[in-house]
């Protein structure tokens, strides 16, 4: 069924048209590892790494091809030399015309063509082969005006299998890929980080009992994630969406012997399932409104949503439903609680799935379905909306919770929640590019931080507890320290680091108080919350960094210190020590001081740290005249979709005021944190908090601390109240109802039937009916007994009777006649 004819669309690159290979390669790798992994010399890791290397190389080439695709589209636009290449393969809707002309199909092709043509003369091209390649419109739209320069519209590369995936009532659904700038960007990010995590894991989980299994699921996860990125219809999208969820489930529960881990895995899956409900309903709503009851195609739905032909109510409902899915998948308040618990999984998994890729799937979905959100939430010209609000609240919730964690991974997890909140907020205020840019930079520096924390824990008794097992590590682990510092600076928003620029773009994009030009609205509240969170981020990252790398090493006195390789398995402490499970032959002699990790761990760290710095050049603000124009806003230029499947958003300009404000917030906050820890150090070189600090006393700080330490009581609400109620009283009540009421009715019917039957038998049958029968016998016998007395045997008696009778009869005879 694979297409032989791929050459139909000569304009786009081969890798863009055959993007299905990206998920296919890791999927094949998954199968290979599953079936043959154990027999391989490296137990399957080499298969996964090879596959990911191929994917990453492909992603690079795809990136290059996409850039040339954009350039080609622009030069075509620039010379006004219309899209003739596109129209050569513009055989309209051949794929659908094979269907015997049902009305749906008629309207389908008509609709397709009319919208295409009314906007511009771009063609929807379908190749005649087994696979069709559809190129979107290729002409400029009067949108995205910036500096008077009209952007060319860049057609996304859409490929579809011609054979049906499923078919119902004359409507056929195909699978396909939908490649545009953001997809290519995600290919790059996922491919790169997955590759690095694979390499890192060969050392990190070395010797684990489920080593092969671990790599198999990493491969499956990568395949699913790439499928999610490339899906061209919502059914494929939800498939991939749930598959990444399953991989996440399996990997969080990697060490499932311990109940904590399997609980975390279950929590992650179920919380996501709640959000998936929203995705399911949202996509169904879109199918019947924007998709007109015939298509799940993301491109077509986007076009319909952006064109304003779909009712606002429908889009709002759909957007809200999809937002629920985002809230669960991307850890937005108030469905974020699973994400910190998900740190129960191995650290590479946390880096790959729960920081860099899977958790941004929700953000990616908003970006992918942006017209739906943009129109449905009325983002343009607004000052508040659900998406922005949820994002803004999440940033603050995540940021505040990160303060009270002792577990380094949990700090990072809450920080991830907070940063995801930034991205969602950015999308909510219309700063699409900023969100995607932040997604990318965050992927780099947060993966760097997570992998760094793994490296640290490797050295520190396999514990993640900053207070008992860390401190002073800068002396022992220079490489880890340096990379972690870079990541921290990027995350905290230190200038000259990528995180600063991407975050600044988001803050500028809010357009709060009119501080930045060209924003989509005046989201002042979001700006304030974003700035506060910026400060908090700087402070908690300083705390995290300080506790881990500054001061003296506390690990020697830790309760985790002299554990044998398996001791941690019995440890109630919530450190997610891999040591309990991977028999670290090489690391058995741990008693001494911490030491730097091996090259397979530090190299990925270095690469990510470099990227965390370099990524800032990807989107240099447009006003920076000292940079050549061809270097400015490259991210926006190549990644942001241009075409009728994308709403007309405007782009906020760099605002020096906001940049300075955020800088001040970060500097003050981290300064305060440093001052605090200097004081702690002065009090006790081995201390981690002030003995008589504000939170240890009564009053507001203590209350605040308790609220934070209990995670706003959300876990309590979910686990104990909601889940407890459903699992306990409600389920028991249902069961009781079943056993006693419904089954009671059935059994009661049976009992009553039996009673009635008993009554019928003993009374009706035995006494009445049979009574009649027996009664007649008895009656006959009794009468016989009476009559026999007359039978005395005397002939004369008989004769007398006879004469008497004759006399009577004669009398009667005479009288009657």
């Amino acid at each position: 069924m694979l297409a032989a004819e791929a050459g139909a669309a000569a304009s786009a690159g081969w890798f863009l048209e055959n993007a299905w290979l990206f998920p296919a390669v890791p999927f094949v790798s998954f199968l290979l590892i599953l079936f043959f992994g154990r027999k391989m010399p490296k137990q399957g890791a080499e298969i996964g790494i090879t596959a990911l290397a191929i994917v990453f190389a492909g992603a690079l080439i795809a990136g290059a091809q996409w850039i040339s695709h954009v350039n080609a589209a622009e030069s075509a636009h620039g010379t006004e030399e219309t899209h003739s290449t596109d129209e050569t393969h513009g055989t309209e809707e051949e794929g659908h015309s094979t269907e015997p002309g049902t009305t749906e199909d008629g309207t389908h092709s008509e609709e397709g063509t009319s919208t295409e043509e009314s906007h511009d003369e771009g063609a929807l091209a379908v190749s005649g082969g087994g696979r069709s390649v559809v190129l979107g419109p290729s002409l400029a739209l009067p949108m995205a005006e910036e500096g008077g320069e009209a952007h060319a519209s860049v057609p996304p590369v859409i490929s579809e299998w011609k054979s049906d995936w499923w078919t119902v009532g004359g409507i056929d659904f195909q699978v396909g890929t939908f490649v545009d700038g953001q997809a290519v960007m995600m290919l790059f990010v996922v491919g790169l980080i997955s590759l690095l995590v694979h390499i890192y894991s060969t050392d990190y989980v070395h010797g684990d009992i489920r080593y092969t299994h671990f790599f198999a699921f990493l491969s499956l996860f990568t395949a699913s994630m790439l499928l999610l990125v490339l899906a061209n219809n919502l059914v494929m999208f939800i498939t991939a969406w749930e598959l990444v969820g399953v991989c996440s489930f399996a990997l969080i529960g990697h060490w499932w012997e311990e109940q904590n881990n399997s609980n975390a895995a279950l929590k992650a899956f179920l919380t996501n399932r709640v959000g998936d409900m929203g995705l399911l309903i949202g996509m169904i709503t879109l199918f019947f409104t924007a998709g007109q009851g015939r298509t799940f195609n993301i491109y077509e739905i986007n076009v319909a949503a952006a064109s304003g032909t779909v009712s606002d109510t429908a889009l709002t409902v759909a957007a809200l439903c999809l937002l629920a899915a985002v809230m669960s998948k991307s850890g937005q308040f108030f469905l974020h609680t699973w994400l910190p618990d998900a740190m129960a999984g191995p650290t590479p998994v946390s880096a790959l799935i729960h920081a860099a890729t899977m958790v941004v799937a929700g953000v990616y979905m908003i970006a992918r379905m942006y017209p739906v959100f943009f129109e449905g939430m009325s983002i343009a010209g607004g000052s508040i909306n659900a998406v922005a609000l949820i994002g803004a609240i999440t940033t603050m919730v995540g940021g505040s919770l990160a303060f009270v964690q002792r577990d380094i991974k949990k700090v990072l997890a809450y920080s991830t929640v907070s940063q995801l909140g930034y991205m969602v907020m950015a999308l909510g205020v219309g700063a699409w590019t900023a969100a995607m840019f932040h997604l990318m930079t965050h992927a780099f520096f947060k993966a760097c931080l997570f992998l760094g924390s793994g490296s640290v824990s490797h050295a520190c008794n396999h514990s993640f507890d900053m207070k008992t097992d860390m401190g002073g590590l800068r002396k022992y682990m220079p490489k880890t320290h340096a990379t972690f510092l870079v990541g921290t600076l990027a995350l905290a928003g230190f200038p000259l680091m990528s995180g600063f620029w991407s975050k600044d773009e988001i803050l500028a994009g809010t357009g709060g108080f009119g501080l930045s030009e060209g924003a989509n609205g005046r989201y002042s509240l979001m700006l304030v919350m974003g700035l506060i969170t910026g400060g908090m981020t700087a402070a908690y990252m300083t705390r995290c960094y300080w506790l881990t790398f500054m001061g003296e090493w506390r690990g020697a006195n830790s309760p985790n210190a002299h554990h044998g390789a398996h001791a941690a398995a019995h440890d109630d402490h919530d450190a997610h020590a891999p040591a309990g499970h991977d028999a670290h032959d090489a690391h058995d002699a741990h008693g001494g001081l911490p030491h730097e990790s091996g090259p397979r761990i530090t190299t990925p760290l270095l690469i990510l740290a470099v990227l965390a710095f370099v990524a800032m050049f990807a989107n240099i603000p447009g006003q920076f005249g000292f940079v050549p124009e061809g270097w400015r806003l490259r991210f926006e230029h190549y990644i942001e979709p241009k075409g009728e499947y994308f709403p007309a958003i405007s782009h906020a300009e760099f605002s020096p005021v906001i940049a300075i404000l955020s800088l001040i917030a970060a500097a003050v906050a981290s300064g305060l944190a440093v001052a605090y820890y200097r004081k702690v150090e002065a009090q006790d070189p081995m201390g981690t908090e002030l003995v008589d600090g504000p939170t240890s006393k009564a009053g507001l700080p203590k209350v605040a601390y308790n609220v934070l330490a209990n995670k706003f009581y959300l876990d309590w609400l979910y686990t104990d109240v909601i889940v407890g109620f459903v699992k306990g009283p409600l389920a028991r009540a249902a069961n009781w109802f079943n056993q006693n009421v419904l089954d009671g009715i059935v059994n009661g019917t049976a009992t009553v039937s039996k009673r009635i039957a008993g009554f019928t038998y003993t009374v009706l049958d035995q006494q009445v009916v049979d009574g009649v029968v027996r009664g007649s016998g008895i009656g006959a016998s009794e009468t016989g007994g009476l009559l026999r007395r007359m039978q005395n045997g005397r002939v004369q008696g008989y004769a007398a009777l006879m004469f008497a009778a004759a006399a009577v009869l004669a009398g009667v005879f005479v009288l009657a006649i």
Partner: protein
Amino acid sequence: MWLNQFLILGALLFCIGVYGVLARRNGVMVLMSIELILNAVNINLVAFGAFHATPAGQVFALFVIAVAAAEVGVGLALVLLIYRNRSSIDLESVDLLKG
């Protein structure tokens, strides 16, 4: 009015016969009483035959006489047998058919 006298005679005879049948304990007497009853009937038959001027009455009477002779023959035989068995012809003691 001459018919009545015959009928009255027949009725008397009949009554005497019935009395004999019901009241006598001697079997032979009972048989003879039956003969009386039959003769009462014969008188009636002959009387009615004469009255209607048909020979049918006399013919019936002749039949009855013949049958009565046979009946007496059988009856006496029965009585004789009873007597032989029981040395008595008291009908009171003959109640073998008692139920």
